[in-house]
């Protein structure tokens, strides 16, 4: 009788625990990170009365959470991927909107070039010149706006890197604390809620950075970054820190607890996406835009110098653009060398940033070597004046460098923001050709002036005027206005060159014939140089003369667009992977309400049945008492 009662009570107790667990499952059905729990019942130890072994009821030995280490790890790693893709997609779509909303560069470029075409049609009209210079200003401001938007995004990304590292550190220390609490409790029943909370924190951490988690035998979880540094080990957490890049203090780098720069090794999660976006999307876009600004300024200013403005003076630059940034490493020796960089050949200019480092005498070129920030080595050539050239850049070094000193060179990154119109007077637009050539009136040969053009606008004697006097058998002597003489022999079809100009003749000049090259001051209503300026729209400036400024913008569009569409499709992929992993994990750990309903019914009935057992025991007891009383 007593065993029946105790069995009944054990059943009631077990059913109560089970009902409480089911209630808790139902209550937490939509709690993030909650794992479905179930009651672990075992048969109570049986007692033998010598002949028979009768069960002794039920014991509840534990409440277990439904958990798969493998599936949970898969959720963590796919979460890194998905959060990274989400961040990347957010940043690239912002960039794409910036590009389409910050004014259309192509339209501005075309109005700028066609402004010169209008000037060419009526070179002395001041309103046309005003309009052309106005178009130059609006073009510069479109470059500025785009450049500033990119700079702002860069600042924002650097800020986010700092914030993300702060969050990572806070999560790591919470995980370490939980590791400690779980360790204390592990002797007793498994603390399901603590485990769930820790898993949830690890999942949040996995969204911030790529990481790997290892379960230790003592129940704690160790967390390592994608670069292998421990973030959490047992109850101890190791904080990451942020600081300025050794070259560029405005660029935020991430350091491990030992102070090593691990920025380039971090992948995955929000942090990995921010770092990768900064180096593989934003910086190239800034450089590409800057390269286009430099190409514009250099081609326009170069053509300006080949013409005469409305005052008959050689054309002055329309645009000014900042020179390449040289950023010495913070690790450089004190009092070392000073490096300045300039662009010597725009057609060779790339969108790379470079590291110029001093490797000591006897190595490299004059002790210096150059590589892209991507690590690709670039050949340097030494110039007679001691400067070094490579990839269209020229470096001048003053002072003495120490071995190991290095400098980051950013040729194009700031060009778009620094582009400005330096010309203030519209009369300065060099619409007219610089030179005019005429045959002397007494010439007896058939030689006729074909054309005269400028080949080197920097030649000091370019505008000094010159006469070309022919002798016998095509021999000629050129005497320029400054008294310099050049001699040569004329070959039909070949230009005659001197002082930075080039004269093309047709026909055959006779001995004694002469031709004069003079400044075109009497022909300022000529628009031929303005026509050439307008024609720059289709003149290749970059990549060895293959890429026009408009092409360069089209390339930028493709580059940014591709980054955006890749990020979008990557997000879809990563989200699907995450959903798959999360679905699989949830199919094990999630709460199914139908299941809980069934369990509820089941345990309710178990409770009722156990209660019935007690009631039966009581009735049996009563009938026994009654029988005794009746029999007495």
């Amino acid at each position, binding site marked *: 009788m007593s065993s029946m009662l105790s069995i009944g009570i054990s059943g009631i107790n077990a059913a109560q625990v089970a009902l409480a667990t089911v209630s808790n499952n139902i209550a937490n059905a939509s709690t993030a990170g909650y794992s479905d729990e179930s009651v672990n019942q075992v048969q109570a130890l049986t007692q033998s009365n010598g002949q028979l072994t009768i069960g002794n009821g039920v014991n509840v030995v534990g409440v277990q959470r439904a958990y798969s280490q493998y599936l949970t790890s898969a959720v963590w790693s796919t979460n890194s991927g998905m959060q990274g893709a989400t961040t990347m997609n957010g940043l690239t779509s912002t960039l794409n909107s910036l590009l389409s909303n910050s004014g259309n560069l192509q339209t501005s470029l075309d109005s700028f070039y066609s402004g010169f075409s209008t000037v060419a049609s009526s070179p002395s009209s001041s309103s046309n010149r005003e309009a052309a210079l106005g178009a130059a200003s609006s073009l510069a401001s479109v470059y500025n706006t785009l450049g500033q938007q990119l700079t702002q995004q860069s600042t924002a990304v650097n800020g986010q890197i700092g914030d993300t590292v702060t969050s990572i550190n806070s999560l790591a220390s919470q995980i370490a604390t939980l590791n400690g609490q779980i360790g204390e409790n592990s002797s007793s029943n498994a603390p399901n809620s603590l485990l769930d909370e820790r898993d949830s924190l690890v999942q949040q951490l996995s969204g911030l950075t790529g990481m790997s988690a290892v379960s230790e035998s003592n129940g704690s979880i160790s967390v390592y970054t994608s670069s292998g540094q421990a973030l959490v080990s047992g109850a101890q957490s190791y904080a990451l820190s942020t600081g300025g890049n050794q070259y560029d203090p405005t660029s935020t780098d991430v350091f491990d607890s030992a102070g090593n720069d691990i920025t380039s090794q971090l992948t995955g999660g929000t942090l990995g996406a921010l770092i990768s976006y900064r180096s593989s999307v934003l910086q190239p876009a800034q450089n590409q835009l800057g390269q286009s600004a430099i190409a514009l300024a250099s081609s326009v200013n170069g053509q300006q110098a080949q013409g005469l403005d409305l005052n008959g003076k050689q054309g002055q630059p329309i645009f000014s653009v900042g020179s390449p940034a040289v950023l010495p490493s913070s690790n450089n020796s004190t009092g070392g060398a000073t490096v300045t960089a300039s662009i010597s050949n725009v057609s060779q200019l790339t969108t790379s940033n470079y590291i110029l480092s001093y490797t000591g005498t006897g190595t490299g070129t004059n002790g210096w070597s150059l590589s892209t920030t991507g690590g690709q080595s670039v050949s340097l050539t030494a110039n007679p004046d001691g400067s070094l050239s490579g990839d269209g850049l020229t470096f001048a070094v003053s002072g003495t460098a120490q071995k190991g000193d290095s400098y980051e060179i950013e040729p194009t990154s700031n060009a778009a923001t620094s582009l400005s119109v330096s010309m203030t007077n519209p009369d300065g637009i060099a619409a007219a050709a610089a030179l005019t050539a005429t045959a002397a009136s007494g010439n007896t040969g058939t030689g006729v002036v074909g054309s005269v053009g400028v080949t080197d606008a920097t030649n000091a004697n370019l505008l000094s005027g010159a006469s070309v006097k022919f002798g016998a058998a095509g021999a000629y002597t050129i005497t320029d206005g400054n008294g310099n003489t050049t001699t040569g022999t004329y070959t039909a079809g070949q230009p005659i060159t001197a002082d930075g100009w080039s004269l093309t003749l047709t026909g055959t000049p006779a001995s004694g014939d002469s031709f004069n090259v003079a400044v075109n001051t009497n022909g*300022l209503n000529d628009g031929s140089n303005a026509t050439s300026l307008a024609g720059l729209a289709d003149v290749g400036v970059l990549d060895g003369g293959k890429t026009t400024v408009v092409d360069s913008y089209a390339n930028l569009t493709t580059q940014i667009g591709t980054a955006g569409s890749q990020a979008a499709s990557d997000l879809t992929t990563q989200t699907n992977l995450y959903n798959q992993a999360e679905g699989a994990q949830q199919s094990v750990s999630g709460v199914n309400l139908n299941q809980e309903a069934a369990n509820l019914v089941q345990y309710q009935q178990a409770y009722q049945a156990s209660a019935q057992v007690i009631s039966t025991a009581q009735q049996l007891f009563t009938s026994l008492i009654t029988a005794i009383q009746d029999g007495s």
Partner: protein
Amino acid sequence: MRISTSWTYQQSLNTMLSQEAELSNTQNQVSTGNAINVASDNPTGASQIVGLSHILAENTEYTNNMGSANTRLSTETSTLTSVSNLLDSVNDLALGSINGSMSSTDMSNMATQLTQMRNQLVQLANTSDANGMALFAGTSTTTTPFVQNASGSVSYAGNNQQAYTTIGEGLQVANTDSGSSVFMNIPAGNGSFVASAPASNTGTLVVGTNSVTDTNAWSAANAAGPVNDTITFGAGGTYAVTDSAGNPVDDASGNPITGTYQDGDSISFNGVSVTMSGTPAAGDTVNVQADTGSNNQDVFTTLNNMITALQSGSSSTAFDNTMNRQLEALNQAMGSVNNTQVAVGSRIDTVQAQQSSDADLSLTYKSALSDVQNVDMATAISNLSLQSTALQASQQVFAKVQGLTLFSYLQS
């Protein structure tokens, strides 16, 4: 497989959210009409749009250039027509002044008339285009390339260059003609040579029409240097031809050219033929000088010479000779104007041909641009309805599924 209830809800929600996003994207495409709103929608297409828009912008630029070139060339052609008409009137007037017995009053009136015509010619030569730029100044900025001096002579202040307008990729057309080529550098005499009788002649010999009849012989004669020969008349119309050094000029057979001239005869040598009328006195000469470029006579000088001759007020052999020479010069000037007219006409034709091909090209590029840039409405709208149907279906399924719980059947 066991399904987590909250995950089921989450999944249905995710599905509906992504369907909504697609729907909103399609809606955006339909309302803007653009298939590409940001570069990431279609990176290749976005770069094509840049390229095509650039070509279209250039075409617009060419169209504008052609418009202004056309205006300028039309102004030039109508100005040249006026010049041509004016020179015709001068020609008529000058023709009327010879071979007639004009009173000195008539001549003086004619001189006045011609002076007015000369002034008008200067005015026409200084015509400006719509932008106030002189048509015939070359590339000089001067607005009055033809400056009339107090004496009536006209000097040219422009230059000899031509300005060009770009009307297509690598295609340029001159939009001006320099004043020097139209009005100033007029070949002398008949274009090849001048046959003139000096005013010192005492006979009644008047040099009439003259021309090159044998170009080979004429070139041969000029090979050693420009021809500068003199026909010298003796008594009874006999004549001999000497060169500038005084040596006799030989015919093809190597004999000195001599002969006897009679009224109305023409004298031929060195491939030229000079017709004369009247009777020369002994010692009279006729000079035959090749056009060297340096003996060019501008049209204003021609008119001035006529005016001076008319102002002298007497019909005479010298007057007739002068007027004949000036008429020759006038004909050359008219020829120069007509040649320019023809050249301008052909440029206008080039511009118009280019305008029509430019319009065709623009149309082609516009349609290519629209293919890339514009959304295909039929597709977009059918997508829109498809996506909204799909969303509705998802919503209905969600509503159905969320009612399917065991609890709803357990309620007592």
